[in-house]
């Protein structure tokens, strides 16, 4: 566990308590069954905004808390534990784009509203089914942006899009010039194909390089959510093995299963270090952010993949049923693994960054 400030400890404890009391996995199930177009429950989201989580990254001058990515990660981790359907990670990605590339006017226009929880914002990079920030055809001419973005998270409800074009990131308001087509993925969250046709766009500074920097921050946030999911999936499995009796013994007494749990626990510890390392690197503005993020996302992908798969297998038949929560973790895991670069993508970049 990273060394937390008193403020961060309070934030984490509050987030954890809230998620456990107000947004357990049963709340996600309820949302899944009700299937709102936005992909999240409005009241649950309002509560999160109320607690100020939308302002974690926003400087105090613009109405936020200015706490940084480690703090954001702590909250996302708690949400991940209970699979809370929340646009917070998408909003944070959009926020980081404005923080890094926004003019004073853009910051003044958007950040206070984001901090106040008034705006659902999201990041739209990909134009195909696989993460590829190098393959962008969306163009901006005379301040008008045209192109199609696929599988945009929170694309169904976003009021502000941070869109990657050939020359960098642009802010596009989610008004009528935007066509949204929902894409129902396995995780029952919001993803949409979004088409911009001559949409008025405002460029952020930083050019094409900004796309990579923002994608890294989005990836680090996803890794934090994945860490929380893996922790919870692991804990639930561990509890189950201690209660399920077969052959007159609890499953937890079988050495073959103990060793598997021990291996998962080990991987989880490595995963936590990698995720916290990436968030800290971003906060302290270190030069190796890209490398640290690739490490974190690749490790989080592999760890959550292992744990969510084992959660189903070790629960046996019950883990296969829709009635049990294991499937939710398995399905969401795959979506997050695909988002902002899968393990292979990040391993490849890690190698390149290290000169081989």
């Amino acid at each position, binding site marked *: 566990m990273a060394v937390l400030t008193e403020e961060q400890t309070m934030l984490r404890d509050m987030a954890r308590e809230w998620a456990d009391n107000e947004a357990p996995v049963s709340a996600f199930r309820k949302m899944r069954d009700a299937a709102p177009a936005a992909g999240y429950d409005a009241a649950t989201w309002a509560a999160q905004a109320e607690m100020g989580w939308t302002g974690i990254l926003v400087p105090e001058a613009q109405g936020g808390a200015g706490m940084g990515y480690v703090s954001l990660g702590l909250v996302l981790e708690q949400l991940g534990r209970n699979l809370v359907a929340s646009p917070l990670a998408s909003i944070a990605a959009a926020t980081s784009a404005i923080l890094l590339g926004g003019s004073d006017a853009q910051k003044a226009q958007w950040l206070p509203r984001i901090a106040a929880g008034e705006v659902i914002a999201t990041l739209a990079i990909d134009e195909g*089914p*696989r993460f590829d920030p190098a393959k962008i055809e969306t163009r901006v001419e005379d301040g008008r942006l045209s192109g199609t973005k696929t599988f945009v998270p929170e694309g169904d409800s976003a009021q502000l899009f941070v869109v990657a074009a050939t020359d960098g990131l642009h802010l596009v308001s989610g008004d009528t010039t935007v066509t949204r*087509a929902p*894409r129902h*993925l396995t995780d029952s969250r919001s993803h949409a194909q979004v088409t911009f046709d001559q949409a008025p766009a405002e460029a952020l500074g930083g050019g094409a390089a900004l796309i990579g920097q923002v994608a890294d921050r989005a990836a680090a946030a996803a890794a934090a959510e994945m860490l929380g999911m893996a922790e919870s999936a692991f804990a639930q499995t561990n509890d189950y093995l201690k209660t399920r009796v077969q052959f007159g013994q609890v499953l937890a007494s079988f050495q073959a299963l103990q060793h598997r749990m021990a291996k998962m626990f080990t991987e989880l510890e490595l995963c936590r270090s990698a995720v916290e390392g990436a968030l800290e690197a971003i906060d302290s503005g270190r030069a190796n952010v890209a490398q640290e993020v690739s490490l974190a996302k690749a490790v989080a992908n592999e760890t959550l993949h292992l744990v969510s798969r084992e959660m189903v*297998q070790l629960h*046996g*038949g019950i883990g296969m049923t829709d009635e049990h929560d294991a*499937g939710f973790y398995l399905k969401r895991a795959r979506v997050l693994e695909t988002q902002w670069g899968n393990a292979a993508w990040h391993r*490849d970049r890690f190698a390149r960054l290290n000169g081989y």
Partner: protein
Amino acid sequence: MATAPDIDAPANPLDSFRAEVRAWLTANFPPSLKGKDNAMSAVEGPHTNSPEEDAWQTAMGEKGWGVPTWPKEYGGGGLSRAEARVLQEEMQRAGAWNPIGGMGVMMFGPTLLEYGTEEQKREHIPAIAKGTVRWCQGYSEPGAGSDLASLQTFAADAGDHYVVNGQKTWTSGGQWADKCFMLVRTDKAKKHEGITFLLCDMDTPGVEVRPIRLISGSSPFCETFFTDVKVPKANRVGAEGEGWTIGKRLLQHERSSLSGGGSAAGRMFAGASLGQIAKRYVGVDGEGRLADADLRSRIARHEMDLRSFMLTLRRASLEAKSNQGPSAATSIMKNVGARIMQERSELLIEIRGFAGLGWDGEGFEEDALKDVRTWLFGKAVSIYGGSTEIQNNVIAKRILGMLDHQ
């Protein structure tokens, strides 16, 4: 896979049989059904057959070739193993598939042929051979999964019949089945020796079936409740208390059929190559190789595993010529088959990215949506029919002679 030997090869006693099979297939297999076999049919339940499908099933059923090695007197094909292989090769060559299947064919039939009375065989085997009666399996219970012998469903002796009470779970296809072969407890004092093998009509009063929804969204399994269900004693297979022996034999047949010996798993592997699909989604480098080197290496590793598995299946089937029935090696096959099937699904998901994670609705290819469901349903493969962990125990204890824990 297996290539059909040339018909002009040196004279072979099977040549005339091969010619007979070829002619029969030409006359009876409608070319419109080529490759139409649905690998997920067992999961999705029965569908309305087209007239061609009906005709094909009837033809195979009457010939007995859906169960080629079963005795002719009970409606089987009466073929030797070598002849059955020829039949399979010729069917593959013609793009034909076996329309007769299900648990009756895979598990119950072979077991009843071994343990049933003459009367029971005459009553049940011909209908299985023709594919007109569906069977389901009443084995697992909520508290008796891997530890099957802990089952509690009780059959009380009531003279000429038993009165059955209890609950089964994971009843595959229970909502579509006509009959159920089940293990029940007839003696509470003994664990393994207190189990009896019964056959029950699913429309008997007191039998209630509730489908279980899986993470894949489908409901191929059910919970089945028995409340004061009367089962005639004539429907008992073997002696009272002999159910564990018979039931275990049936499980061997189940494992061998689940190991993918050219059936369900084989069909799944028969689709487009992973490499080709990956090239489409991931792109190629300057030399035409898959652009993602990491993925490329993992696909190669998977394909090598798959080929080793198929070669092992073939070797095992050749070596089994002299043996009777399935062997302990079926545990290995089930585990490898499950692992490969799951890896394949996961590679497909990874290759397609978000396009491979569609649940429903617009924007996804039909194949991709199907593969998502296969991925999720495939998680059951390493759990049902004796989980991977249980098969590993079987390998350790029965093949390697290792000892019990504690």
